[in-house]
């Protein structure tokens, strides 16, 4: 099939108008922002400044929490690093070595220093916690936030609890930004740049890898995504945005003290991201606005209502957030989005994109995958007992056996999800046991899952494009600044080709979660094919398919075999298996009990006994 197929079959109508609509909305938003300081009283300009500062932090958290499914309570501490670095350097309180004297007193150089410091801290914290399960990052960031807050308060040089004054204003092209109105433009320029780059990032190869994190690391790794790196990237990006916000804050206030960088503010930032919610860039700004305005209002009325002073607004914040999460997990933006036209991400496809380079298929009959005496024990249970298995190019092999025979365990050993207790797995002659599924994916093995692992809110096309992840090279910065468009077009064209190939072309832009289960399984095959494999491991691909879909699947697998691919099926559907495969391996109680052509195996007494029970004589 050729790449121009895409141009004929895609429902491209209306998409251009929608894109224009989005640009128009953005244009109006920017225009309103630009005019606001001239039209509203100073109090509101100050409020908008704070919304911008908080929004910048919330945007990073949105990427981390709303999209990546991780969370941090330490963002306020990163804000603090930005603010205190510039306070120390631009006031000259902390002396720098003579060679760097030129850097003293310059806010812009202080910004660079703050970002570097933040980068270093975020890398260390991330490296410590991100390999662990999801709970260690928040706990680690709580501890880090507390420690840094106390540190700000104890350094006499940094003014201790009283803080530091006399921070100079920022100069842009020789203009000193001394008033709140002047800072307003700088703050919102930062926010808009951050929002647009975040949106660009999400709509890219790296963005798909980040969005796939929520679907569990097993799937993403099997598609060649370095999940530890993706997690680290969003943590670092969120920290850097927080740091920039702190820098702006210090030069807006011209004064810093430790209290705005306490854990309490770290929690408030998280609330903003969650209240906005829904993994949408604009949700973060909505959340920042709602929380900032609500806080202002509650701080006015609650003490009067309760007859005493205190931060009682936190009671309402907490209760509101609990109610919101009980009712709408996608936050306020989720509620707003119901009334907006559907997001139109990647509605059009690049028509004339070059196709991606393909792996050279091994010659037919080459030994591709070999398991030698693979044994896997779970405590006393031997799930795989000295299993031997071989798979050649241009061959379909079925691994069958009664429930509990150890097929899925074997599948996990071969695909690198699990590590054999003893024995070897050779993939095209290379030992791969214990090397992890990402390394195995790079060698040309791709797979589907017994329990479908898709990103239900992403489109069919985007899900399949995750499979093509390892065929792209462009990184996070390229994605943020749209330097990746050529490669992105080729990846999407490839994904579209695979969607068409498995017969899901009519659902190209539908949410994957809206497909029937059988179609979701087929989608997983398309995703596996998008990685350009020479070996395909399919875990019960025919389960849940209707007869005609099964026939189409069989046809597809035959075609792949003829192209030289090696295919291993774990399957229960005997009709499907027997008419399709070249060889069958039968397992029972962790051992191989038979191997051969389908018709041989069907006559094998050991197999009959395993499936039907022994015959009394």
């Amino acid at each position: 099939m050729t790449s121009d197929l895409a141009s004929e079959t895609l429902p491209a109508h209306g998409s251009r108008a929608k894109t224009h609509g989005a640009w128009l909305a953005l244009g109006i938003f920017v225009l309103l922002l630009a005019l606001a300081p001239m039209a509203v009283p100073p109090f509101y300009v100050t409020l908008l400044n704070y919304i911008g500062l908080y929004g910048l932090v919330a945007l990073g958290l949105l990427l981390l929490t709303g999209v990546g499914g991780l969370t941090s309570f330490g963002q306020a501490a990163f804000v603090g690093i930005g603010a205190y670095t510039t306070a120390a350097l631009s006031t000259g309180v902390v002396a720098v070595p003579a060679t760097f004297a030129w850097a003293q007193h310059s806010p812009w150089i202080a910004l660079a220093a703050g970002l570097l410091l933040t980068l270093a801290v975020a890398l260390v914290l991330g490296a410590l916690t991100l390999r662990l399960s999801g709970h260690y990052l928040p706990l680690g960031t709580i501890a880090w936030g507390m420690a840094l807050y106390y540190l700000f308060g104890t350094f006499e040089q940094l003014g201790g609890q009283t803080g530091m004054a006399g921070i100079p204003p920022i100069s842009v092209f020789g203009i000193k930004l001394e008033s709140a109105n002047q800072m307003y433009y700088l703050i919102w320029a930062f926010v808009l740049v951050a929002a647009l780059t975040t949106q660009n990032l999400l709509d890219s190869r790296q963005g798909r890898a980040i969005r796939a994190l929520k679907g569990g690391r097993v799937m993403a790794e099997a598609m060649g995504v370095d999940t530890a790196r993706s997690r680290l990237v969003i943590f670092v990006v969120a920290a850097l945005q927080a740091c920039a916000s702190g820098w702006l804050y210090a030069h807006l206030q011209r004064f810093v003290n430790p209290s705005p960088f306490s854990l309490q503010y770290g929690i408030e930032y998280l609330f903003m991201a969650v209240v906005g919610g829904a993994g949408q860039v604009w949700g973060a700004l909505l959340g920042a606005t709602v929380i900032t305005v609500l806080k202002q209002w509650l701080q006015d009325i609650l003490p009067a209502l309760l007859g005493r002073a205190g931060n009682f607004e936190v009671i309402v914040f907490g209760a509101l957030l609990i109610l919101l999460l009980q009712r709408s997990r996608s936050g306020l933006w989720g509620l707003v989005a119901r009334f907006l036209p559907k997001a139109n991400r990647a509605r059009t496809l690049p028509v004339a994109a070059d196709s991606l380079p393909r792996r050279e298929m091994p010659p037919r009959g080459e030994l591709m995958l070999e398991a030698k005496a693979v044994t896997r024990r779970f405590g006393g249970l031997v799930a795989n007992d000295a299993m031997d298995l071989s798979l050649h190019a241009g061959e379909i092999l079925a691994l069958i056996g009664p429930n509990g025979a150890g097929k899925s365990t074997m599948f996990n050993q071969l695909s690198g999800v699990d590590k054999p207790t003893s024995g070897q797995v050779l993939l095209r002659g290379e030992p791969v046991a214990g090397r992890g599924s990402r390394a195995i994916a790079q060698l040309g093995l791709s797979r589907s899952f017994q329990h479908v692992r898709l990103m239900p809110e992403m489109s069919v096309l985007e899900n399949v494009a995750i499979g093509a992840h390892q065929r792209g090279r462009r990184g996070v910065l390229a994605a943020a600044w749209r330097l990746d468009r050529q490669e992105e077009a080729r990846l999407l064209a490839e994904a579209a080709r695979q969607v068409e190939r498995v017969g899901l072309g009519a659902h190209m832009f539908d949410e994957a979660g809206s497909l029937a289960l059988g179609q979701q399984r087929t989608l997983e095959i398309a995703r596996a094919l998008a990685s350009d494999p020479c070996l395909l491991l399919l875990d019960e691909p025919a389960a849940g398919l209707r007869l005609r879909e099964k026939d189409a699947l069989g046809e597809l697998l035959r075609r792949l075999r003829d192209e030289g691919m090696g295919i291993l099926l774990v399957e229960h559907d005997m009709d499907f298996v027997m008419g399709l495969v070249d060889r069958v391996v039968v397992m029972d109680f962790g051992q191989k009990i038979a191997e051969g052509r389908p018709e041989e195996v069907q006559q094998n007494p050991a197999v009959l006994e395993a499936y039907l029970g022994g015959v009394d004589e």
Partner: protein
Amino acid sequence: MNAQIAVLLGQDGISNGAIYALLALSIVLVFTVTRVLLIPQGEFVSYGALTMAAIQAGQPSAIVWLLALLCAGSAAVDVAQVLMRSERAPALRWAFAGKLLYPLVMIGLVYTLPLATLPMALQIALTLALLMPLGPLLYRLVFQPIADAPALVLLIVAIALHVSMVGVGLLVFGPGGASTTPLVDAMVEVGGVRIKGQTLCVIAVALVLIGALYLLSNRTLYGKALRAAAMNRMGARLMGISPVFAGKATFFLAALVGAMSGVLIAPMTAIYYDSGFIISLKGFIGSIIGGLVSYPIAALGAVAVGLIEAFSAFWASTYKEIIVFTLIIPVLLWLSLTSRRVEEDEA
């Protein structure tokens, strides 16, 4: 530092450590059974300390109104549920009556008893009676409706609850700090070393509670049900163990442990409405040392936190909190290096 100071610091460290250990156990228990990281654990501590202080000062603590409010809220949710689907009404009837009667009894007690002159054991009992029901009530209102949510959502809700409870603490107890009279005022001399009776008392109570938790979870059917729910939620549900019961029971224990810790710690240091968080964070560090799963390691880790805190207060008092909180970094490093490379997905 001489031996005398070392003994003094050691006592402080061990008695604080014993309390952190109690909290760490409770955090691990709640986490394994419900997947909730109970950030509000510390609020039960400050509520316990401040309620005890109010009782000793002879004031009817306003916390009883919070209890009444939560009971009423919970009863209202029950009614709404029964109206929506009329099943299980008989089972709820008793719970419903209890939720209305219990706060009335408590209000009666708090406003009629001569609180200040009660024997200390009764004061403690009253404190616990006021605070323990908050655990299951909060579980009912806050976590039960989202018991199946992703762990991240549960964590954020736990944080939201913590923030709210701190605010309520300020409203109910005011901004002032409070200390209570020691449980035991005597000094004991062991082998020429003078040991504070309060220290022994804290250690004894902590050991008794830990022992009771151990017996409960290993020797009773209910305890075994909780452990089963912790190991495999779906399996436990299929065996007829109600996840709602398991959740409420663990929150009840968490409230008991928290309030009792507050009663124990209040004679040693002044407690404010927001002190609980820092105290429970140290319990969290203990439970992280235990990898959020192991009870004995978590308890030992928490005692170590107490000791390190006491000695760093002597050597570098300004950096005390910084030292305690950065302690987590080598622990995380160790956990990170020993963990498997790609974990299975969270439930």
